[in-house]
């Protein structure tokens, strides 16, 4: 088990470093830098003195060789210092720390909704003996996965905010402001949960142990929930780990549609203004959450199925 944990943690660190490096390289490939981005964005500024831009670029270190900049940033990042956002002058860590709670709230609510809606759908669809109902229910997830989040968000706002006026269209204020954005995010996510869970439930229901349980006289619900669902939930759990990353990525769109503050908005703004320190911070932070969730999932597996550690350790010893 210890070896399993160490391996997973080492992988996580590797992913963080890779994410950081890729982000840095991609940003380096883009022409310009935050200083010119600002001068360009304020096209109203008319005459921009090239000498002044050069001086500012020097001040922020954007005129140094790429490798030196990379080493500089990485060295400081390892110590948890991501510098100051160029666009605002605020420390990157403070900016992210402010945005994080909002996004966590949103993604947690969305994940909860997704699991409830998606899980519920899968259980009902596989339980029902009415063929048409099962077909209908099982056709919903592919639809949910394929509609664009942006569009879903706008439809929900139009219906529940502008017409019915049940919920506010924008802002971070209170739980009522959370409903529509969480639902928007939960639709594609829940659809994926439903797809995976329904498939593995159907597979599980064909297994011999289900027959055994039935033969022993267990009720239909009991077999479905206690026996099949427990075994079928492992792949679904993997998907949930994966979905956390997707939810964070999805927050860029949802937070924009619903004008919520959070990591997604910070990301969009940082990229728009090519604020290199801020983008670096966002990427590492996003990767950190993603990696941490997956680490958690990895550590939960053995609890559900002890064979996983055994398999993993055996594989490691062969290398």
């Amino acid at each position, binding site marked *: 088990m210890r070896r399993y944990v160490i391996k997973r943690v080492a992988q996580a660190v590797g*992913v963080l470093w890779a*994410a950081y490096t890729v*982000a840095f390289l991609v940003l380096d490939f*883009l*022409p*310009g830098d*935050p200083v*010119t*981005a*600002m*001068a*360009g*964005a*304020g*096209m*109203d*500024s*008319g*005459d921009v*003195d*090239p000498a*002044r*831009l050069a001086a*500012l670029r020097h001040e922020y270190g954007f005129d140094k060789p790429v490798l030196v900049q990379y080493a500089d940033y990485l060295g400081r990042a390892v110590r948890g210092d991501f510098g100051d*956002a160029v*666009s*605002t*002058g605020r420390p990157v860590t403070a*900016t992210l720390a402010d945005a994080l709670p909002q996004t966590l709230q949103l993604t947690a609510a969305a994940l909860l909704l997704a699991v409830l809606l998606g899980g519920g759908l899968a259980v009902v669809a596989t339980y029902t003996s009415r063929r048409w109902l099962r077909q209908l229910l099982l056709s919903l997830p592919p639809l949910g996965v394929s509609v664009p989040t942006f569009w879903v968000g*706008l439809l929900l706002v*139009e219906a529940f*905010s*502008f*017409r019915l*006026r049940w919920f506010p269209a*924008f*802002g*971070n204020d209170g739980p009522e402001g959370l409903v529509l954005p969480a639902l928007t995010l939960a639709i594609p996510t829940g659809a994926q949960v439903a797809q995976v869970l329904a498939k593995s439930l159907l597979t599980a229901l064909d297994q011999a142990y289900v027959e055994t349980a039935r033969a022993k006289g267990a009720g239909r619900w009991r077999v479905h929930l206690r026996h099949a669902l427990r075994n079928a939930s*492992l*792949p679904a759990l993997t998907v949930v*780990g*994966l*979905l956390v*990353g*997707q939810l964070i*990525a999805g927050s*860029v769109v949802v937070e*924009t*549609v*619903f004008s919520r*503050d959070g990591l997604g908005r910070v990301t969009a*703004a940082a*990229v*728009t203004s090519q604020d290199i320190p801020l*983008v670096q911070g966002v*990427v590492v932070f*996003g*990767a950190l959450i*993603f990696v941490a969730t997956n680490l958690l999932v990895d550590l939960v597996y053995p609890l559900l199925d002890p*064979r996983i550690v055994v398999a993993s350790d055996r594989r490691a010893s062969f290398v």
Partner: protein
Amino acid sequence: MTALPDFRTSRWAPLAALLTTSVLLTACGSGSTGPGSGSNRPQSGGTLTFAVGSDAGCVDPQQVGSNESIYSVRQTVDSLTDQDPETGKIVPWLAKSWDINADATEFTFHLRSGVTFSDGSELTAQVVKDNFDAVPKLGALGVLAQGYLSSVKSTAAVDPLTVRVTFKEPNAQFLQATSTHSLGIESSASVKKTPQRKCSDGVVGSGPFVLKQYVQNQSITLAKRTGYAWGSSLWSKKGEAYLDKLVFKVVPEAGVRAGSLQSGQVDAISSVGKANEAALKGGQVTLLRRANPGVVFGLGINNSRPVLKDAKVRQAILAAVDRKQIADTVFPTGTKPATSVLAHTTPDYTDLSSDLAFDAAKAKALLDQAGWKAGGDGVRVKDGKKLSLAINWFPNAGTNQPALELVQQQLKDVGIDVTLKQGQVSQFATTLQGGDFDLVWGNVTRSDPDILRSSFSTRLANFYRLPASSLDTALSGQAATTDTAKRRQLVDDAQKLIVRNAYNVPVVELQTQLGVSQKVHGLAFDSGSRIQLHDTWIG
């Protein structure tokens, strides 16, 4: 266990998606404008909720350049002067009067007494000096304010209420610059803070509203300054503002802004595009529009390119563009086709619409004269070379691409082959500096005709690689005279020289369009097509 590997291989996909989403996102900005006035009897009190599309991440008026942020932070500072949006005339505000020496190198302002900042400190000549000394040291966001003071020699407090600004060279535009938010006066204590602190914590000004709370990407809340008594001479209400509170909500999605206004969740919205006009019509909403002053949206020409050195080719492009079609098809209702290189809201603008009339036959004739003969595929040819040009553009407004696609089609009709080259918004400045372009799409907002000098004088950056000519004389001349009639004449000359030599291809005037609930009164545009909310009331 059997099902696991399938899922695990794709587990890093979302992370990759996060990375790609971050990188692929691009900037999208837009403009807005219009006038509006009230009826009934004005009443004090109430809160105005205004949804804007973006947050520049900074609440220091001296540093922000984005209209959407200027709407709010403008209300926290006063300026030395104000500019009448109707006449372009500069009128008193914090300065009761001013003297300018004959060659426009020395500006002396006589300040109003009894003005205080919201921290209780008084407005003195020294405070103004502190401001003007600090502005050149602002960071990357301060380019606007820095430009206005770029050739300053010194600022001196002559006596407690008299301040003198001296420039190294004639600088007639400075008077208008003192009316802008960029040179809004902040308290001495505020000025001494670092630019970053000013950005995130806000500044102490003497304006009719005080910053109460700033939540980045979310909202800016302002409260009325009680005891305010030094408003601009342009304002109709004396003393304090009507409204108790101003709340600016950041709502990036244009459709959500429009719906929020329609459903009464906000009182006013910025940046109403053509797509949302229909949704807002018929409701309790007024659309306010005003053209932004300054250099209109058009094609900046690299006049040093061999093909474009030929005035006939440039003039052919000028004649081949059907400005009305572009304004009507792509831009919000009310957008005017360009009638000069300056928008009609710019002081000293000259109507040159006859020079900018669409005339495809004339364009073809000019190209024939220049030796470009019609080729087999419709593209003109000269000495075996095709008449092909590229237009560089940047996605800073949603209207750019459709407008340019129309331009492309119109030029094709007279035999000019045009490719559109999209760049990153951040490349704009570098593209101009580098000079590797044929034509570039853009505009500049500024409510002073001196913007022509910054854009077209060969003695400054000369981004458009113009040859030295009598245009330089006119441009320098208008910067060096305080005689309004003479300045007008020189600005008039300059516009004619630019348009008739086709040094630039003016296309449409950028229009600012706001949506305002009908219960909001007295919300009007200032000279820069931004807003002043002192006279605004709800009822």
